[in-house]
């Protein structure tokens, strides 16, 4: 028996980035289940004497630590009977119903067990979940969070990158260290960098709790999201905590004026080996009920570290959106994941973010990598420094506010340099380090830490240790900045210290915008259908539109119209064109702007060279070229057909200034041409020469091989159509309906061609 040969398409597919991704088959026993597992309990709850004595099929005596905490602090006995009795599909419909207020649904959630919440969102499609999320999320104005880390823990680059992240519009900045003992230096560097420019950005340094509290107390940081919770008792204990220890820690953060959010996400229990064969969404629902119970204002969820594993499962991305929906439905601020890189496929990455861009989120990414992938100490994010401009473009494509704003090259460079100088000045003022000028210059231009000649981690450790042992605080940094002439930065940092005294940013979904607190309290999401909820202001939309490399008509014409009115015209009209009678006669019909207002094809060929190639080709094929200026049309087909009808041979060529060309015959319908070069950007002079030759060969009664302009699959439309449309408008603007074609003579400096 002969084997069927392998289709080579599979070889090509094998080389695509997608094939690096692993896809897991559903396997409930191994914990690979997204929305349903036979081991998930059926929703139930029972109240006796105002006390919850049963949750999801489990009696009080069997409650594990999560059940016990949820029963005592999440479930509202006043709402349980009503909420648990509702049909899940009815509740799902309420979630997408613009006429049912968010508050009404939040009240019902307070009476629902984890299994009940899951039964509702499991009834919803990805689109419905996205829509419900846009309605249920807490703060009206969407925001975003950046990772600012550095593989060398280089304070200079951290400061510059923090300033860059702030300028891009991130509302929160999160750092962590390659070397744990560098935490104080990283915190100081990022705090200084974040004070350059607009200021007013929340900042966290992710490290072990005791240290994080200390750094927060010193005034460097303003929020924490390291309060991790897990969906099974075994995973929780293995994570070295309990709901009570985490609730205590949450209160401790509040007591130090530090905004806190919990972290949880699908598949973390799977990664830790304690999944109890339950679906990842059910376990996450337990985490989220627990978080509300603990009184934390918000959550970082949507897979997080487990997002790639969840995305390997069928429906995994829908699951990640579903858990985000449960979070906001429970009234929690949601930093909605989109941090860990879930795929090597750029298509999957783009698709992953799109629902969030459209729905908006308190913090769309709970860590957008603002630095290069290799510098991200947390691991690569869904989006990274490499892909920031893709993200900015998606905002513009969908008219969606993803929280970021395009910035100009010169302003970025100034901000970065200022940040580097500011941290260097602070280090010097506080006797921590005299920074060499070469380091400053090296960091200013470097894209990432691999390009720098600057601090090494060991040196940073000494500085970090000095900051810690000397008890330096943000107040010392404010003073140092001011003394060294960084008055604006000193004020920005001081502004953040003032914020912590009022505690305003401790409330749900609080961020700072333009020096003011906005949160779910004073900027509540009030979406109730079209015409309500968040809409970009005109000014905001204009800012989002200003992506780099924007083509304007003026800039395109400036570049493309190399028209010098003082030069002698090389195409001179000699009178009205008439039909030729020579059977070798081949007319080339030139468009209205050809060689006058427009002088180059989109491939960059000078139109003189194009005409020479065509005419030489015609002669090679035994024809006699004749040039005619068309004024009644700029369309290739009609240029070609008109030329053919003027030709003694009956064959003509039509060509536009941008280079699109056609061979036509007098007796054909306008759009039934003989040969067409539609892809002007990849058409060479040799192709034009061959086209001329073929036209003459057709006229001589031969059947030449048509000219093929090879394409390699580039999107010529994406690359050229903006320019083409602007240039073509010049041609059509010159069209005069009834103007007759004009005979042309070609006069070039060195003799030109005979006509």
């Amino acid at each position, binding site marked *: 028996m002969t084997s069927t040969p392998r289709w080579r398409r599979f070889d090509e597919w094998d080389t695509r980035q997608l094939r690096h991704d692993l896809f897991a088959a559903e396997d409930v026993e191994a914990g690979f289940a997204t929305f349903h597992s036979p081991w998930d309990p059926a929703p139930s709850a029972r109240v006796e004497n105002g006390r919850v004595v049963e949750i999801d099929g489990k009696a009080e005596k069997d409650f594990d630590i999560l059940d016990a905490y949820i029963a005592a602090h999440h479930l509202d006995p006043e709402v349980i009977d009503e909420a648990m009795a509702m049909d899940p599909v009815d509740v799902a419909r309420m979630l997408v119903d613009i006429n049912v207020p968010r508050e009404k649904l939040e009240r019902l959630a307070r009476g629902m067990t984890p299994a009940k919440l899951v039964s509702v969102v499991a009834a919803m499609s990805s689109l419905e979940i996205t829509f419900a999320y846009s309605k249920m999320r807490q703060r009206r104005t969407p925001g975003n969070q950046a990772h600012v880390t550095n593989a060398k823990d280089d304070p200079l680059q951290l400061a510059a990158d923090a300033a860059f992240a702030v300028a891009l519009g991130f509302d929160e900045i999160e750092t962590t260290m390659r070397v744990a003992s560098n935490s104080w230096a990283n915190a100081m560097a990022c705090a200084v960098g974040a004070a350059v420019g607009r200021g007013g950005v929340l900042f966290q340094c992710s490290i072990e709790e*005791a240290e994080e509290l200390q750094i927060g107390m010193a005034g460097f940081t303003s929020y924490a999201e390291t309060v991790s919770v897990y969906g099974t008792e075994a995973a929780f204990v293995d994570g070295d*905590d309990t709901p009570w220890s985490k609730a205590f820690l949450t209160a401790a953060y509040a*007591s130090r004026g530090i905004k806190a959010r919990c972290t949880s996400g699908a598949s973390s229990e799977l990664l830790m080996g304690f999944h109890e064969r339950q679906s990842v969404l059910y376990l996450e629902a337990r985490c989220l009920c627990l978080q509300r119970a603990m*009184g934390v204002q918000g959550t970082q969820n949507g897979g997080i570290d487990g997002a790639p594993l969840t995305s390997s499962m069928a429906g995994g991305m829908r699951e990640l959106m579903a858990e985000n929906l449960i979070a906001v439905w429970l009234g929690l601020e949601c930093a909605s994941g989109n941090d860990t890189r879930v795929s090597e496929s750029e298509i999957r990455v783009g698709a992953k973010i799109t629902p969030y861009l459209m729905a908006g989120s308190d913090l769309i990414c709970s860590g957008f990598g603002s630095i290069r992938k290799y510098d991200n100490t947390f691991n690569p994010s869904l989006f990274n420094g490499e892909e920031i401009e893709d993200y900015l473009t998606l905002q513009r494509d969908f008219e969606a506010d993803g929280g970021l704003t395009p910035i100009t090259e010169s302003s970025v460079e100034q901000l970065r340099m200022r940040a580097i100088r500011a941290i260097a000045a602070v280090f010097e003022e506080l006797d921590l380090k005299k920074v060499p000028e070469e380091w400053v210059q090296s960091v200013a231009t470097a894209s990432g830490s691999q390009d720098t000649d600057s601090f090494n981690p060991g040196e940073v450790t000494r500085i970090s240790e000095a900051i810690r042992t000397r008890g330096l605080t943000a107040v010392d940094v404010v003073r140092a900045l001011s003394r060294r002439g960084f008055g604006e930065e000193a004020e920005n940092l001081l502004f953040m210290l003032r914020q912590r005294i009022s505690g305003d940013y401790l409330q749900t979904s609080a961020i700072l915008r333009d020096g003011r607190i906005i949160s779910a309290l004073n900027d509540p999401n009030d979406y109730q259908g079209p015409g309500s909820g968040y809409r970009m202001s005109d000014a905001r939309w204009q800012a989002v539109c200003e992506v780099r490399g924007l083509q304007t008509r003026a800039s395109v014409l400036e570049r493309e119209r190399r028209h010098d009115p003082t030069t002698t015209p090389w195409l001179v009209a000699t009178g009205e064109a008439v039909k030729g009678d020579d059977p070798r006669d081949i007319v080339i019909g030139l468009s209205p702007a050809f060689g006058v207002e427009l002088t180059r094809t989109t491939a960059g060929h000078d139109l003189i060279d194009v005409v020479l190639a065509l005419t030489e080709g015609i002669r090679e094929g035994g024809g006699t070229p004749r040039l005619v200026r068309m004024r009644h049309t700029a369309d290739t087909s009609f240029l070609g057909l008109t030329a053919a009808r003027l030709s003694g041979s009956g064959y003509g060529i039509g060509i536009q200034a941008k280079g699109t060309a056609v061979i036509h015959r007098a007796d054909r319908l306008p759009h039934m041409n003989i040969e067409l070069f539609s892809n002007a950007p990849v058409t060479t002079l040799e192709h034009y020469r061959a086209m001329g030759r073929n036209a003459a060969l057709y006229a001589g009664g031969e059947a030449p091989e048509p000219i093929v302009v090879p394409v390699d699959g580039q999107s010529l439309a994406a690359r050229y159509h903006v320019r083409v449309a602007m240039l073509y408008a010049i041609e059509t603007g010159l069209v005069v309906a009834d103007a007759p074609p004009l005979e042309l003579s070609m006069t070039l400096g060195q003799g030109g061609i005979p006509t």
Partner: protein
Amino acid sequence: MTDPLDLYPISENAPELAVSASGMPLERLTLEEVLAGRVAATDIRISAEALRLQAGIARSAGRDRLALNFERGAELVSVPQDVILETYEMLRPGRVTDPALLTARAEMLRRDYGADAIAALIDEAVAVYARRGLLRRRY
């Protein structure tokens, strides 16, 4: 009585109510004061009063769980850092094998700092830890 929600944000609507843990009013936290060396680390710490105000605001906004957390936070404002970290450590699984130690810690916090809500949280933990076998050494 006015709705506490009207106070929010306090920094804009009632800055006079924002006083740091050391008693420094918000408006005194200026660059001049910092340069004059009149601002210390305790001056940039939130006060229990501010947290209780925020608790009232959260409750008025229908967020009673958050309000309770702010009230627990208010109780911890005057608790020294080492006591906080030690208590947190004791609440971690398996750190304490004798429930009486946790109960004593709760009693101390109640007595010395008036931390009734925190103490109640610890007492609740003791009962569950005992039932779930978490009062067992892990290392």
